[in-house]
């Protein structure tokens, strides 16, 4: 009897190992298929800072968050001039990407850490978001000093209007705008980019953002299907915002007539 129990236990253990092995290989195959299909990169996100933990974040003196229970205000597009004299209109509202606005100035002591990190190439890609450094306009800023502080390739726009539009209390200051809704979804201050990354993480939800991490990517088959649907709708004259997309549910028990919405949409 004892021998039988021992043998059964051994067989059970062997079978368990086999089942776990099969499940693991199945998961690996699924992961690779998903990656081939253009799915989300399964690579783990890069740590938020060199220490791997979120740096402490606090708002600077005088920085006030929105009142309890109220929505964050609406963001504004950025119009201004680059250091090269390029005239810039950058969209932040009604777009698919989010925008991180970093308001800096050439003379503020608190901005030094930001400029140093920017010069050292410390501005990380922010997922699918765009990062714009915004200073006040050329009439209120030292263009020569900014040219020295700004590293090549930095997307810097000089716009006093952007400061006024977003009611920036002082520099440094960071605002995160949700592109789809156009709402500001986080704002505050810090002493360095690393510190402000915590603010951005809060805006995106804990763990939802970290430097270098890819945004959510749809599987290619889903994207292709959406393109096909878009094409069919557009071929039928249904553009984004078309009234037929927002009609109440039509009573399908009634036959469609020539002037009914369901017939007109064809």
């Amino acid at each position, binding site marked *: 009897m004892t021998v039988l129990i021992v043998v059964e236990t051994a067989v059970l253990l062997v079978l368990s190992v086999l089942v776990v092995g099969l499940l693991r290989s199945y998961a690996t195959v699924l992961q690779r298929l998903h990656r081939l299909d253009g799915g989300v990169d399964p690579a783990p996100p890069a740590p938020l800072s060199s220490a791997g933990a979120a740096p402490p974040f606090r708002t600077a003196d005088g920085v006030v968050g929105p009142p309890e229970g109220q929505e964050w205000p609406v963001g504004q597009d950025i119009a201004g001039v680059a250091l090269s004299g390029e005239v810039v209109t950058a*969209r932040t509202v009604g777009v698919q990407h989010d925008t991180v606005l970093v308001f800096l100035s050439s003379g503020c002591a608190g901005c030094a850490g930001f400029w140093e990190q920017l010069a050292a190439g410390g501005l990380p890609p922010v997922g699918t978001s765009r990062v714009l450094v915004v200073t006040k306009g050329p009439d209120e800023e030292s263009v020569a000093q900014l040219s020295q502080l700004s590293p090549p390739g930095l997307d810097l726009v000089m716009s006093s209007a952007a400061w006024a539009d977003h009611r920036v209390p002082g520099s440094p200051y960071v605002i995160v705008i949700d592109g789809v809704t156009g709402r500001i979804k986080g704002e505050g201050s810090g002493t360095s980019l690393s510190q402000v990354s915590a603010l951005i993480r809060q805006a995106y939800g804990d763990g939802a953002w970290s430097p270098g991490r890819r945004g959510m990517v749809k599987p290619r088959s889903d994207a292709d299907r959406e393109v096909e649907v878009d094409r069919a709708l557009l071929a039928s004259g249904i553009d984004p915002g078309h009234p037929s997309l927002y009609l109440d549910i039509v009573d399908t028990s009634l036959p469609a007539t020539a002037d009914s919405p369901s017939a007109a949409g064809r």
Partner: protein
Amino acid sequence: MTTEPTLTGHGFSVQLPAAWEGRVYRRSTPVAAFSPQNRASIAAGEPSPAGRGWLGEHINAVLHLANFPLPADRGDYGSGAVEAMTARNTFVALVEFGQECLGTALYSSIGLPRVEPRRFDPNGLQRRIPGQSGCQFFFTEASRPMCLYVVLGSHRDVDLLSAQVNRVLDRIKVDAP
């Protein structure tokens, strides 16, 4: 509710449709000629006080429009930007040429053209990128010789995307020099 800002500069004016943004610039006049050394420095990302160009080069205006975020560092024909395009994106460059080109055969077509789907070709790109297609037109508008260069994110959607481009081109106004 999105507004339609107007981008104005260097004799161009565009009322930007929803989700479209733009930049207009004129490169600074080169103060030193390209040399293998400073070309290598630029390629390595080092600042180039000499500017990018050739001594005696005529500097003219360039307008870029896109329905995706335009990076700060771009070539006149969109290098640095078109690599970031998705299938639904479109890039438009309007590059002005010098007055010495005025009246020449290449620029004899008058007026800002509109694009047609049949003109787009995956081989019409400055540098071929899978899925994309492009086309180029030379013309004169308001006595300014120009090149219109358009890149579509997806050649499969050429009908849809070229219609979008034409809606944007309708909004461009060019001032005389």
